[in-house]
């Protein structure tokens, strides 16, 4: 990580998938790592199935702008493949993309899935994950978001202990078992990225 530079993360998905909740976990983890961090989100109609996106900026220096420029993001975390494509141009040339292959197709004009996958695979630094399969294997229906965060963690200057702390705190109210399942999903995602070039 380059200290003076502003780093950016874009998160995208569909209303109800938990995009904003992931963004908040990220923000908290960055803050606990001693970094200046800002998160921007737009809500109002989010639970009704529209596109949702959030941005997180962080730096070692103080920040005032919560908005990233095109070409200003280091990382894109997408919970849905089509929603990933919308934000590819937000990524820096050397940026990475972690994306779920699980489509939410209940909308008019969804392009052929194969085209969507092909477009994603054409992006350098793209890491696709079959979250549906992962969820089945972990016997945890909502494992996808946490697994993506685990993948993303390989590109972020946040210590393992901080992640565990923040995730545990986030799910504290839902009991030890839920916390454990989420930590497991996070670790599973983390294990999917072997050699994070440029991290």
């Amino acid at each position, binding site marked *: 990580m380059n200290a003076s530079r502003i780093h950016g993360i874009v998160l995208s998905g569909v209303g109800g998938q938990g995009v904003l909740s992931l963004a908040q976990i990220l923000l908290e983890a960055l803050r606990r790592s001693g970094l200046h961090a800002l998160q921007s989100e*737009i809500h109002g109609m989010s639970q009704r199935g529209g596109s949702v996106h959030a941005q997180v900026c962080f730096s070692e220096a103080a920040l005032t702008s919560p908005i990233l420029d095109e070409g200003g993001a280091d990382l894109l975390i997408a919970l849905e493949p089509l929603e990933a494509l919308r934000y590819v141009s937000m990524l820096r040339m050397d940026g990475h993309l972690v994306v779920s292959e699980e489509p939410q197709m209940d909308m008019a004009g969804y392009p052929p899935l194969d085209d969507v996958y092909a477009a994603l695979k054409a992006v350098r630094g793209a890491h696709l994950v079959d979250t549906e399969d992962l969820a089945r294997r972990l016997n945890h229906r909502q494992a996808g978001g946490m697994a993506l965060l685990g993948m993303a963690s390989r590109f972020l200057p946040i210590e393992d202990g901080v992640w565990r702390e923040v995730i545990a705190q986030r799910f504290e109210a839902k009991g030890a078992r839920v916390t454990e399942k989420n930590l497991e999903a996070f670790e599973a995602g983390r294990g999917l990225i072997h050699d994070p070039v440029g991290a």
Partner: protein
Amino acid sequence: MVQSTLALGVEAVGCAAFDAGIKGAFGYPGTPSTEGFEAVELLIHGAQDGRVAQWAANEKVAYDLALGMSYSGHRTLVTMKHVGLNVAMDAYANSALTGVRGGLVLLVADDPGMHSSQNEQDSRRLAEFAWLPCLEPSTVQECYDLTFRAFELSEALQVPVMLRIVTRLAHCRAALARRKTQAPTGLGPVPEAAVQDWVLIPANARRRYVDLLDKQPRLMAEATPLNRLIPGTIRRGVALAGMGRAYFGQLLHENPALSALSRLEIAAYPVDPALEQAFLAQVDEVVVFEEDYPVLEERLGLRGTAQIRGRLDGALPRTGELSPRLLKDALGVEAPVGKAASSLELPIRAPRFCDGCGHVDAYEALKEALVQVGAPETRVFGDIGCYTLAAQEPMAAIHAVVEMGASISMAVGAALAGQNPSVAVIGDSTFGHSGLPALLTAVDSGVNVTVIILDNRVVGMTGQQPSQALDQVERMVRGMGIPDDQLQVLLPVPKQHDANVAAVTAALRHAGPSVVVFRRECIQSIRRGVLKDHDRQERERCTTEVCS
């Protein structure tokens, strides 16, 4: 500094109001102001120290509640979105003449880019219109600090103070350092000698208007320490407010060469003309970065000394919100090149009704009933809420959406012009907000207007706050003069479809005003258990009292 937490900008305003010792908070929900009220509500409920947080039926009611609290000598916060201030404008403009006793801060959230609004009006203009001060933060911490300052100013100047934020700041989350919480302290009610100031009969109002105008230099003097003139080294400059200030600050950090530009940074209005002149004396060309209307841009342009660039000359788009990219382009700063956008066509993913939402069943019944009466092409007057989604294809069930409460009056107006049948569709919260007086007039007009009230028991659109009309809709309808036989209450579920079609058909055929209430709780509100306690209490009350 006692506490550091993560908070949204709009929440920071609520926290500051609590910490500044307000006795009460009032508001009507509206994105992106809603969470400001909810933050202070949470603190007040937690504190259990006699403070109150109360949603009001509409923004004007909220503002008058706050004014009453101020009259009695207590600090108070009132929250609304930008169009809400249109509704509260009568109260706001006249409270400039009465002045305040306890500090009164009005949080208004503007929505440049119309993320969830029907227009992008600029509240700074309304503050100017009312001759009142307005503070405009640019970071989450400033939201907090300037709210504190706003309370002090309100009491020092004895006027209401507006705190204007925009969507991007309202929904920016960042670390927030809070100060020590002050307990609410009352100044006591308006003293005897000042009572006439609050009685705006013409004789008093004329005097108070002069007082208000006489106060303007003091308002400017108090604004000046919050505004800054930072000289540069060349004869170019930027004028910055709100997010313009935030984006430029960031850009300056990345491009230190920009410090050659002179900067006029505005966080408080009215702006002292002397400050503007001092700035203009240093520059030949200025780019103005502010959200919504070209307020500073016009003021600086009127002086005619420098070339003023911004929304009016095309340096920036005339509409929509600012962005870091727009600043870079206008200043000729090189922008980064990112990965190529996908060449695949990406259709928008529009928001839609939640699965199982009762509004859908109600619309289906209405559409078929219109077919039954032989008028399937009827233009239906809609209103604002989740049910506005029905304006989209393929449902296309409503054909006008203007402002809250408009549906009923527009349907009556169209009926008076000869449309028959004439139909209005309105939500329960919207009905309580501004549908009531419209229904009174509908009854008085006697025309064939069918008012469909979609009662999902909450304010669905803004996050399922309990509706003020909760359990009251039939009583309200009867109270406006609709006879019992023209009021039907239906259950919008697929199983009831045929019965519902028959009932709506009967209402459409009736020659005079009629009301059909579709009642089923919002799915999201059920999921979150918003009304669970309320409903349990009602059931308990009903077993101890005689309930019908």
